[in-house]
């Protein structure tokens, strides 16, 4: 479904991705782990076309989207819960969610809202609070909720559990499993490698912009190298 081939991405002169090839198949949960600054976020953002890959190709559902504009890429059915949450601080919670479903009809928006509200009751309670004043964790829920609004084919999650309470973290991974069952493909970046690998079908390990390991989630969980570097064993 999503395919990156020999992608190189730069920020100005700084190279952040070096010859990365990654594949995500339909209906899979794929996770990406790696140390701080390895380029995980960059990889997700390259899929979205910002920054664009300087060389190599990114294709989605068989079509080359390497040079496409960000908004056209996203309208193909990709949604992202980005690093740093990036909720619209002065819009209310409800408005933020509606922004997520910008291109949907009003019926679908209502359904989407209802769905997100059942996942995160706190958001319903605070539907009219300005997003910027929500607590860190609440904003994280909002960012995930907003991404779910579009009913994406491919969901990109960049550290979705950052700043969440343990109880909610468990819940988030449950959600990831459920939506996969509903047919959504998930591409997940996590520091919490342990849990991420448990839900993931497959995983990639990124080190300073390069893919150094690729295997099934279960295999990576028991891989010595991974255990040492990322699982804290």
């Amino acid at each position, binding site marked *: 479904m999503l395919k990156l081939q020999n992608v190189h991405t730069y920020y100005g002169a700084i190279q952040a991705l070096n010859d990365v090839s990654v594949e995500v198949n339909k209906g899979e949960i794929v996770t990406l782990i790696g140390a701080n600054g390895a380029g995980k976020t960059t990889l997700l953002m390259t899929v*979205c076309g*910002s920054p664009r890959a300087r060389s190599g190709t990114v294709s989605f559902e068989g079509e080359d989207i390497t040079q496409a*504009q*960000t*908004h*056209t890429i*996203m*309208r193909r059915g990709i*949604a*992202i819960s*980005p690093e740093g949450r*990036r909720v*619209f*601080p*002065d*819009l209310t919670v409800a*408005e933020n969610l*509606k*922004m*997520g479903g*910008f*291109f949907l009809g009003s019926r679908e928006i209502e359904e989407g809202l209802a769905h997100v509200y059942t996942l995160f009751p706190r958001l319903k309670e605070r539907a009219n609070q*300005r997003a*910027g*004043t*929500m607590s860190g964790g609440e904003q994280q829920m909002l960012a995930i909720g*907003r991404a779910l609004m*579009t009913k994406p084919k491919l969901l990109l999650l960049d550290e979705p559990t950052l700043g969440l309470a343990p109880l909610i973290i468990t819940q988030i991974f449950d959600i990831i499993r459920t939506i996969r069952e509903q047919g959504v493909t998930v591409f997940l970046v996590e520091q919490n490698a342990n849990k991420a690998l448990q839900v993931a079908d497959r995983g990639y390990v990124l080190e300073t912009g390069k893919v150094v390991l690729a295997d099934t989630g279960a295999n990576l969980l028991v891989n010595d190298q991974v255990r040492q570097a990322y699982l804290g064993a």
Partner: protein
Amino acid sequence: MSELIPQLTQQLFNGLSLGAIYALIAIGYTMVYGIIGMINFAHGEIYMIGAYVGLVTLSAIGVNSGLPLPMIILIMLVIAVLVTGVYGYAIEKVAYAPLRGGPRLVPLISAIGMSIFLQNWVAIGQGARDMAVPALVTGSVQFQLGSDFVITAPYSRIMIIVVTVLLMIALTLFIKYSRMGRASRACSQDLHMANLLGIDTNRIISFTFIIGAMLAAVGGVLIALAIGKLNPFIGFLAGIKAFTAAVLGGIGSIPGAMLGGVLLGLAETFAAAYISSQYKDIVAFGLLVFILLFRPTGLLGKPEVEKV
């Protein structure tokens, strides 16, 4: 002093109509600001161009064409709005869009440059001296309040007040409740994120500029009709005043721009009436400073609580 009340009423009307003028321009200002967080110093010039286009249209029609008056005004407005819409679009594309994402002050300087450019563009095209606009809308509502002081409310001024209020309401509703309005607010807060939601942010920005320019044009035409004098440099002062009004009301807030404009108009009028014309601008700016000291984000601006 039985004349005091009617006088006050007259001044109140004067203040309101002046305020409405400021507000009409300020709304456009605040809208553009609200979306891309940029002080568009060339906005006043768009207003000026709108006025010129109105005059050109009027001259083309001819004052004695036999068309009914509302029809003439409508044609003037429509053409002015269309032309300035194009101006707004082109200016944004040429002078601002290439600078997006750079340092914040760069577009500000570009806007100042654009403002100088446009003033002289018109000065060269249509001449730098004053143009007179024929008094099209004449007559006034007159009434007396007890004494023999006649309170006069010219139709041309009433028209401005009415149009401003209507536009403000329409625009507030639009921004607040429409999909497009919500999208433009989102763009103002995080352009990149809006982009990541599949929204063509360039379109939204162009759109905002076009709307802003159109509003300015409406202001230009109506004010030209009411005042009767134009020159290529009227936009600058009007722009500064409107900017002040927008800030006073809280940048980004449309009712705020209206409120700020009216307040500024009233302050100037009453200062001129009861202190001295000489000091009216000092009073106006003084008021601005004073209010901002107590409401650092303007009257209706959202308080800038930053969650830490």
